[in-house]
């Protein structure tokens, strides 16, 4: 099957003007960069679209957060779309959970090049070039075939000569979604581990041979050639027997759990059906998270060297204006306790900033997280009975957030608004972190309490 050569830019989860980077006490320069990161990434995305002269851009889900009611996000969107409009580039938008269709419809003066993708009954969007349809974009994994029945001769001519539109389905899935549930019977896999081995560099062939199978297999409903995914926290590509599904990940990483370079994907469809997904970095702020094991024989220089080894392997992108590193130092007590000292942490952060050649210390920030080995926390051997009782009582306190209601009620006695606020956050809190904190407090308390006794 022949396709009209096509090129489009696929981005997802832009979340324009959403506050990112939950790191307190950012330096003002970094804070300004982080604050503008999503908009800068979107501007970069628009610039890339114009630069690569794409046929259209495809924004899949959560382009902005309606709940924030951000004017800056709307202006950035409108400005970007107008730029695309001036360049003759169509913008196809799949509304997501955070930017529902109604929110898009409420945007006034949306340029004409913007098309909102709606469920199939509303119709499938076609992308034309020189008055010829080069792509059909919908929101389902299968698209209806031509409305009128074709003769066998037409089919043969279509298959052999006439380029067919490239079929794209835009779907917001997210990390939590089960691939099997999302993809259903769309293009069964040839190899079970194909998805796992798929990468951005992989070139998937939507070959003509499989197209006929699709035609034959689905009757009037044909499987799409490209599934534009969105909502995931990482880039991923799933190759199937026919076509691929690709999620470029968030346009801008929002935290350490979205580490690494972030951006969009330039999808190029060759005439022979060859499909290439090229990663184009767009994120303004880059997050990196490294887990560093702290050996029992603690050595500051050695630890710094381990960290530097991680830094040396990094390659900065041109669009990145700020880097935020999160170092998870994992070790056993009491070695790890040395790292709790604030002066040590401050100095170590400074050493890390100096150690990184790129980026400069002004454009980067290093955050240290100390993680004690759980096994080292649990009492072993000769344990103070009180500590054992404490741990037993603590383990008995495991359970739901109802445990914290009395504390919230104490807070309510002081101020009802505070209590309501904390009440609303209870489900977002890390119960395990709370328990670990309580555990650590117990260790500190009884270790401190034991010290005089030991001295006696």
């Amino acid at each position: 099957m022949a396709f009209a050569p096509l090129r489009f830019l696929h981005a997802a989860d832009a979340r324009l003007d959403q506050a990112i980077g939950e790191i307190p006490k950012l330096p003002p320069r970094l804070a300004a960069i982080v604050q503008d990161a999503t908009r800068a990434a979107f501007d970069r995305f628009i610039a890339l679209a114009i630069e690569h002269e794409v046929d259209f851009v495809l924004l899949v889900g959560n382009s902005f957060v309606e709940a924030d009611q951000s004017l800056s996000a709307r202006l950035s969107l409108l400005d970007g779309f107008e730029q695309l409009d001036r360049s003759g580039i169509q913008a196809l938008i799949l509304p997501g959970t955070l930017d529902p269709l109604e929110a898009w419809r409420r945007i006034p003066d949306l340029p004409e090049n913007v098309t909102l993708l709606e469920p199939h009954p509303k119709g499938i969007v076609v992308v034309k070039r020189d008055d010829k349809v080069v792509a059909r974009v919908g929101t389902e994994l299968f698209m209806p075939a031509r409305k009128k029945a074709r003769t066998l001769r037409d089919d043969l001519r279509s298959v052999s000569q006439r380029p067919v539109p490239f079929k794209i389905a835009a779907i917001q899935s997210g990390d939590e979604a089960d691939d099997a549930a999302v993809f259903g019977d769309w293009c069964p896999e040839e190899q079970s581990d194909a998805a796992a081995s798929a990468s951005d560099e992989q070139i998937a062939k939507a070959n003509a041979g499989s197209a006929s199978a699709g035609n034959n297999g689905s009757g009037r409903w044909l499987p799409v050639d490209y599934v534009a995914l969105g909502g995931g926290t990482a880039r991923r590509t799933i190759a199937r027997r026919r076509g691929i599904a690709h999620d470029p990940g968030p346009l801008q990483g929002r935290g350490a759990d979205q580490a690494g370079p972030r951006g969009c994907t330039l999808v190029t469809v060759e005439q022979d059906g060859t499909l290439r997904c090229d990663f184009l970095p767009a994120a303004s702020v880059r997050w990196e998270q490294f887990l560093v094991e702290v050996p029992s024989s603690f050595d500051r220089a050695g630890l710094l060297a381990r960290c530097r080894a991680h830094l040396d392997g990094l390659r900065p992108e041109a669009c990145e204006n700020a880097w935020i590193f999160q170092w998870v130092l994992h070790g056993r007590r009491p070695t790890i306790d040395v790292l709790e000292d604030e002066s040590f942490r401050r100095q170590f952060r400074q050493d890390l900033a100096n150690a990184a050649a790129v980026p400069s210390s002004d454009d980067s920030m290093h955050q240290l997280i100390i993680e004690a080995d759980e096994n080292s926390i649990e009492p072993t051997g000769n344990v103070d009975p009180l500590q054992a009782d404490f741990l037993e009582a603590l383990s008995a306190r495991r359970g739901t957030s109802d445990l914290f209601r009395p504390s919230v009620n104490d807070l309510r006695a002081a101020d009802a608004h505070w209590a309501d606020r904390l009440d609303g956050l209870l489900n977002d809190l890390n119960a395990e972190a709370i328990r670990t904190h309580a555990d650590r407090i117990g260790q500190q308390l009884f270790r401190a309490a034991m010290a005089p006794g030991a001295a006696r």
Partner: protein
Amino acid sequence: MKITKIKVDRFGVWRQLALPVSGRGLTVFYGPNEAGKTTLWRFIRSILYGFEPFEVDLDGGTVQPVRWEGALQVEAGAGPFSIHRISDRGTRGLVSVVGTDRQEPAEALLTELLFRTNESLFENVFAVGLNELQELATLEDEEVAHHIYGLTLGPTGQKLLDATRALDGQAGALFDAATRSGRLVDVLERDQSLREELDAHRGLREEHADACARRGRIEARIETLKRRRSQLERQHSGHRLLERVWPYWHQVREIERELAEIPVLAHFPSRSEERLERLEADLESSTHLRDQLSQDVAALRSRRKELADARRLNKHAAAFSGFVEHAGWYRDVSQQAAAARARSAERQCRLDGAVHELGEGWSVERLERIDTSPAAHRRILAAADRFRTALRRRHRMARRQKLLNRAMRKRAALLEERLKPLGGVSLDQAIAEQTARLAHLKELTRLKEREAELARRQRTLAEQLAADGAEMPLWIAKFLALLAGSGLLVTAIGLYQAAAAVDLVAGAGLTFIGFTGLGLAWGFKRHRDVQSAADAERADERRSVAAQIRETNDAISRLDATVAGSGASEPAQATDTAGDVASGGNPTGPTPAAQGYHEQRLQQASERLNELQRWARAHRVIQARRKRLSELRSRFQSVQRALSAERQSWCLSLKENGLSESVKISEALEIWHRIADARQHFRDTQAAAAEADQLQRQLDSFHGRMQEAARRAGRNLDDGAQPLEVLADWGRELESLAGVSEDVRQTHRELWQQRQKRRQAARQVQILRLRRMTLFAKGGASNRAEFLERAGWVRRRAECDGLLATAQEELRAAGESEPDLAIVEEDLVNFNEDENRERVEALAAELEQIERDLHAAFEELGSVKQSLKALESSCEASRLRFEASQTCHELKRTAEEWLGLALARQALDRVRSKFERNCQPAVLASASRYLERLTRGRYRNIWTPLGQRELRIDDERGQTLTVDKLSGGTREQLFLAVRMAAVRQLAQQGIELPMAFDDVLVNFDQQRTEAAVETLLEFSQQNQQVLFFTCHLHLAHLFEARGIEPIWLPGQNLPQQNLPQQERRAG
């Protein structure tokens, strides 16, 4: 150590008292009030730990020491000892320990016998009176508390306590509910502030959309206006050109017509042209006037139209005027709201300060719960007054009792000091003896006087005997016998003679003589007999006197012996008279020296008797005062009980009013006053906040109504706009609106007037035209043209030729001035100069209006674009969202930290609770058992929170109570149990001291009294010596019924015969 004998040489009311005490078990001392039980109790403590210093103020004002002295025989592990202590004033006494060979100081030996306990511990634990039992504070003495609470803490408890404090410290740094401070509070406040700011930025998108829509509308309007302006400009130019061209065209046309139509007229009126010119002039001036008026009317119409536009605001003028009129109110309310907010903040600060001053555990919520109404204030003041009055009364009573007791003891000591020489003889006996001695001395005096009188009588008799007692000389007897014989003879002779008639006369004479001689002899004989009888009598009397003198001397000797016996100290004066008599000498009576000595003795005896009688009176006074002291003590007991009741009432009042229990009235009242002040601050704060809120609501409501009114009037009132500035703008607009209205009215008036004038002018034109027509008729013409034609055909023909050429030239020039415009002949034909002028003016006015509208639209567009630019360039919302996100993250981490602390605290509390319930000190465990027995199982467990000096009691239902929740009796039972347990605990530590109770069961009911007696008996059977002092007979009988024979102390102020038979066995 156990006491086996109490030996009081001298202490208080006791003298030479020896009481054997059972060394094992319980010993009950019964005695009525004033019997000296408490003195005995004090004596034991004083012997063990030292006397209290005393001062004795003697009558002379000199201070002399009073010597207390006594001993306790005790049994200790090393054997029997006797602890003897003697005290001087101002010292605790010198102690000696007998019964050991150890060469150590007696104090050291005694300290060892007392197991190195101090007096405080003994008084608070071992020696328990009703006062100690009622006072919670005695258990909080440092050393006692150390035994009850401190020792029980142990290293584990200390660890838990340290951990709790450390945890509280960490939690307080995160969140302190009392001061509403801490890191969590800071983050929450910052979070709330940011969210509020974000909420304020919520409508930016809609605002931007509105501004965009408005911009679009304005731009569309501008386009429309521009198009309209272009059209009007073209129309205006056409009419102007027509206006310029038409006169020339018309002139040419007229001249041509004139030339074509000029006839020759022969009879034409003279001076008709002048008249016509005059009429024409008048007509022209009238027409001009009319036209002028028409122009004025048109101008006024235009003006009215302009003003009508300005009056569109008039629809909303009333609403705006209402708001403007309230500008002053709004300013006042704003200022009031600001002042109220400042007041609220200031009062909040004051409230926080006041709550902080109240100390830990106080919060605004607790303060809010406290009733500080005048009634509560009166109640607590009344309770305080009653408690203070009871305290003062007890203090007064105690001081009075102390003074009376001291004075009585001084008097008693003085009296005793003075009675000491009596050598153990009672005062009455001494008085009796002295009275007897005085009587003896008086008898002796009397006897000695009698002796002297007898001696004098004896001497007189002796002198009389010496004077009369000589024997009648013999010759006198013989002479008398001769005389008697002679007389008898003579008588006989005389009788004879008489009888014998011898010579009667002679006989008679001789008889007479005989008789005379006989009479003389008889007389002499008789006198001699009488004298002899008198002498015999004198002798007898002398013998009798001598016998009496002897008897008197004997009596004197006996009395002397008696007196000498009773007054042994007197020098033995010789009973000289007796000796004289005894020696058979003539009693000569007492010598002056002896007499003086005797009188001196008599005087001394009398003085001594007087002195003794004075002492007896002093003794009676002392007895009376002792009785009074007894009464005072009884009253003191009742006052003490009343004080206890008032203290409970006071504590209850404090508790009811939400205060901590305290017996310090001034401190509690100060706290109460501070609470009242804080409460007042709280009310002030609430009032100020409510006032501020109310004012703010009024302001907000007013502002909302302003916005609504502005919206209705098609105006966009910016949220950030200051209402007062808006109102000032509205005011100015309304003022100008009033001017416009006035202008409109004026314009209407002028328009009407101008129309009137125009109508008049039109009528004048009609009249002039009629006159002109008359003139025309006279000239044979029907109209002016005809007339002019007729008048000036000839003259005009030549002129018209020249004029026609000029006019045509000018017409061509005028037509060429506007090459873009073409004039249609029809327009020129239909041209009406007035209408055209009006049309031009109207177009000019409309163009001017369009220019103004355009200007306003451009200004509005600029404003909208400016606001759009400001909105688009503002990144405040993004910054706030970013900061809110950062703060939310920090809040989550801080909350996790805080909840981690809370979780740790819950676990620690569980460990603590387990420890507190299961690892209570032995003292409290033992006390729990005693309390269960004392209360017949009503209360079962005593425990204390870790690190606190507070007792908690679990009742039979498992409910935990604090001490202040207990009744007075139960509280005494609790403290009794705790003390008994403490004694048992100390005994287990080797500190075995006797335990003394002074009437501690008086507030127990019958059931619990019996339980207490049984418990005490059981307690004493655990090798614990118990000394139980009571003044209640039923208690003594209770113990007696259980085999404990009480020791009946002698009543000091009760007659012996009033005591029951068994009570007289005391001592």
